């Protein structure tokens, strides 16, 4: 969806998005990485529709992704860092929940 104006960028960070490496300039949000790759952030719990960043300023809450194991983080409000693991979310997050019990 978006591309860089410049071919060479001096200072970059590399993170992974759904396991694939992605390199972006320093001091940008995780949402920039999603838009550079043309990735979606998530699919909705109700209808499974794909959603991607929309407002880029923390108002719309569309860009919810899992970052380093923590789900439902607004990608546009988190700065991208080297080695960050970003995963798109599908359905309701399980995150750090305990395993379900056996019901009687």
């Amino acid at each position: 969806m978006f591309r860089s104006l410049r071919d060479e960028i001096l200072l970059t960070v590399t993170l992974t998005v759904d396991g694939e490496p992605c390199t972006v300039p320093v001091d940008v949000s995780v949402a920039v990485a999603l838009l550079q790759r043309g990735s979606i952030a998530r699919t909705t719990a109700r209808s499974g529709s794909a959603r991607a960043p929309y407002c880029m300023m923390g108002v719309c809450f569309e860009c919810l992704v899992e970052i380093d194991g923590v789900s439902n983080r607004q990608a546009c409000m988190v700065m991208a860092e080297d080695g960050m693991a970003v995963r798109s979310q599908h359905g309701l997050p399980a995150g750090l929940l305990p395993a379900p019990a056996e019901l009687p």
Partner: protein
Amino acid sequence: MKPEQFDLAIIGAGPAGMAAALEARRQRLRTVVLDEQFQPGGQIWRNVEAVTTRRPQDLFLLGPDYADGYPIAQRFRTCGADYRPGARVWQIEIMPTARQAGAGASMAMPSSEALDTGPDDDPQVHVERRRTGADRHVCYTDARGAHRIATRHVLIATGAFERPMPVPGWTLPGVLTCGAAQVMLKTAGMVPRTPLVLAGAGPLVLLVAAQLLRAGVKPAAVIETVPAANYLRALARIGPALLAPGYISKGLSMIGALRRAGVPRFIGALDLRLEGAGRVESVLFRHRGTEHRLRAETVLLHQGVVPNASLWQSLGVDQTWDAVQCCFRPGVDAWGNSSVAGLLVAGDSAGIGGAEAALCAGELAALSIAWQQRRIGTEERDRRAKTVRRALRAHWSARPFLDRLYRPPQAMRVPPGDDTIVCRCEEVRAGELRELAARAVPGPNQMKAFSRCGMGPCQGRLCGLTVTELIAQTQRRDPGEVGYYRVRPPIVPVTVGEMAALQSGDER
């Protein structure tokens, strides 16, 4: 542990917040500025420090209005305010007054003075000229967790965001706001992939199109949803606008640039829809009776901005419906004092006026606060305010024209199609809401209880105005009478763990 104490907490480091901080520090008020971004500038001057120092070649792309933000940001950095970036405020709490609680004695000096209101006093607005305690608490979260600070006055300067533009397909990946494209350009030096289409109404559509053109990206089209009737209505107000510094000439030069580059503009477009499987692929609309379909990989939408109101709404500040700007505005006096004592609102979050007007409003708010805290006298306050008010009036003079020219038509504010999504978070469509409204649901809160519209993570920011106007339209009521969602804190998410660890604020 007692929370940290301040004279003034400013929420937002955009033009209004920075101007208020500069004036507050001139008066030696102990000031904290909380902003959720990591550099000052708000949205209009987003990332201006980094661009100016590290990518100055991009200043040309973004234009002189953007570059103007840098010297202000620099002065803000050195004015002595406690500036806390990356801080998201989720609640403001008015504590029982320090006098009643018998605590906070260091800040409160109970006085037997009678209520002393100044000129421009509004009976609905509470201005008390006495030494109030630091009994307004601001709760915010940063990378280290949740925190609470105590302050005597709070200035909300949270700016604006783009009003929702509920057209069919607006939730598709690849559809973003014009402002989002500016954020990509300002923070990352990135531009949209083509084919690119911009659609909507408002100066930002032209501005972003012009900026992208300068960056070498030629939009496939600019689709303007402004109806022809708006031009006639706006012309009646063009007089003062012509005298306002540069607004009209800037617009005309952007239009000229688009024409020279051969970018087609479709004025008065109707029936805008976006289509695609899994991401946006086409833009459809009707123009002068002809149906158009354009291929697009990226679509940028914009139809004006509205106050970022959640914080002052969560405090129950009196609000009124602005029928021209089609949004709710807080009831404030000429200084920004609201109906909640000790709380002021300045800049676009009080009503859209633009960056220059926001600078003035921030300064006026700080002058009033300094006067209320008895740092300056009435004469000095009014003398200083005089020049600021003159500038403010000049910057406001183009607003009646711009507001009427770019007022989105009703069909773009309340989608006529039943299948169009109104609440993006909970995927509630217009048809369901209209049906409930037709059956006399009393207002947006009952609507929310029945349909889940407004219960998602965005807390109604992208659907609230649509829902208010949908109910108003269906039930033939005034939107101001219909009202808005009851906004409750936390206005941004805070974890249960952070909340559990929050100091209670009344320990001594």
